């Protein structure tokens, strides 16, 4: 066999394997879907009466209720959870599992990240789409116009979330370490993204925390998708949100490929 560095065939195998594994583990589906659902209902109902949506943001949601406000944020949380579950396996898989075999195969350094990113994105988008069925309960419209905008937003957010999970998981040697990073890094990114509460305008630290947080743009893209109308005009913030999220996803991918291609003397 001539020396080659394979990309698509192995990447698709990883993708397929992730999907099959996920479908065979029912508790994972329930975990990734039920936790945010409960969170949405409890937090949403609890905060509802005291929530006042600032005027600037009401346009994005059909109603001013907190359940409606929190709905896009919950979608992002579902995607974050799914991405985390699908990348956390990398930690053990690499030392004792399927990935060991991949590391001695003649692969392009992009093959493993590409496969994992595609797998994580597929699962995250599927779970999020399932949750979207509940949108009318929150008073949000969900039809062709919304779905058309929502799908690319979900895909890029899923890709970016899987990317963050992969970057955290790859250098780790224990799942405990992953949980620590998740709690002090990934969850705050989500909380400071406008998913849980509207980020204030102005120049305060909270404003900057939101403006510099790439997750904010994903939340914005998803939230504004629900405000789609039959006209040609895109809802405010949608395009910026989508472009920034896509760029962020691309950056995550490039860093991951770089990380995987390193064969250090440390091993």
């Amino acid at each position, binding site marked *: 066999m001539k020396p080659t560095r394979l990309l698509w065939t192995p990447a698709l195998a990883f993708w397929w394997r992730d999907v099959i594994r996920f479908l065979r583990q029912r508790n994972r589906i329930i975990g990734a879907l039920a936790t945010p659902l409960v969170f949405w209902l409890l937090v949403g109902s609890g905060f509802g009466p005291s929530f006042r949506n600032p005027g600037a943001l009401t346009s994005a949601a059909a109603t001013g209720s907190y359940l409606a406000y929190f709905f896009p944020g919950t979608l992002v949380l579902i995607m974050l959870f799914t991405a985390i579950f699908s990348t956390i396996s990398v930690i053990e898989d690499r030392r004792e*599992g*399927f990935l060991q075999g*991949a590391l*001695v195969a003649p692969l392009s350094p992009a093959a493993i990240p590409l496969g994992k990113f595609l797998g994580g994105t597929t699962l995250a988008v599927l779970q999020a789409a399932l949750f979207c069925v509940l949108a009318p309960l929150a008073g949000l419209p969900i039809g062709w116009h919304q779905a058309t905008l929502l799908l690319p937003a979900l895909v890029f957010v899923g890709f970016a979330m899987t990317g963050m999970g992969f970057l955290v998981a790859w250098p780790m040697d224990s799942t405990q370490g992953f949980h620590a990073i998740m709690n002090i890094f990934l969850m705050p990114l989500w909380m400071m993204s406008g998913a849980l509460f509207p980020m204030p305008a102005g120049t305060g630290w909270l404003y900057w925390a939101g403006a510099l947080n790439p997750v904010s743009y994903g939340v914005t893209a998803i939230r504004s998708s629900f405000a789609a109308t039959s006209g040609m005009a895109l809802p405010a913030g949608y395009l910026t949100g989508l472009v920034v999220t896509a760029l962020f996803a691309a950056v995550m991918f490039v860093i991951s490929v770089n990380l995987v291609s390193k*064969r*250090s003397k*440390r091993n």
Partner: protein
Amino acid sequence: MSESKTHAIVISDLVKSFGERHALDGISLEVHRGELFCLLGPNGGGKSTLFRILATLSLPDSGAAKIAGHDVVSAAAAVRSGLGVVFQSPSLDGKLTILENLRCGGALYGLTGTELESRITEASKALNLIDRLNDIVETLSGGLQRRAEIAKCLLIRPEVLLLDEPSTGLDPGARLDLWAALEKLRSDHGVTALCTTHLMEEAARADRVGIVSSGKLVALGTPDELTAAIGGDVISLCVSKETGADQLAKLITSKTGIPATVVEGEVRIEHGEAYALAARLAGEFPKEITSLRIARPTLEDVFIARTGRLFADQDLEPDMNAPVKKKKH
């Protein structure tokens, strides 16, 4: 490159350190084509480090290694294309069936479609797995899993197979099956296999054995050559507490002129006429000797003779994740 025609693996002066510790301290050896070669050594002796370098997972500090003529550092992609690797811990996905694992495994090497399917049939026939292809891997016995693992490696029709402690966790029956499978691969397909092990009986089945201890190659040859070099049979004496093994060893050496060593509290003598010597010793030291054993030399005796130590576990191999100076590749 005439060397690569006769040698499947050429290792020259490999050195690898983890901080202060030399995991490999200048190892050189060659594995011939079509050979079943065993790297025997206690845990922590350096054989896993050597395995990881040969498998292109880790970089040496200095020295070189070639597999089928390709350098493992500078031509890793070429090495990987023709190398089958069986890891100590399973590399199959337990949630998938054997067939699904084989398909995924083949895809990693760019195999698809009818070519992949025909190779799957060929490999599963070679390892007697054809009836089990649709079983979920985690429901299978350890022996079957290991066979499926080897089948996955065979999909690429490798020139060289590397196996890291392949019989770990297998019962004796499954171990025999595994060796039968390796021997068949060698005879039917001319596959060269390098296998690390800490089991003497396993190494005794190989064509040639390299014994590794403290990062050095301390013996190399066929099992018969190595044991023949001991120079006779081995007498082991248990000694009464009053005398002590050191004292008795000195007494024996001064009286008979035959070198006696002490290994783990027992006196040990290699001798061409062990039976006659044993009878003489039993007569001369009836009080000091509490029990006496004569045995044909084994690879363990070879290890003891070359290192002066019992084949017990040495220090564990260095922690892969311990902080050490990181050098970029």
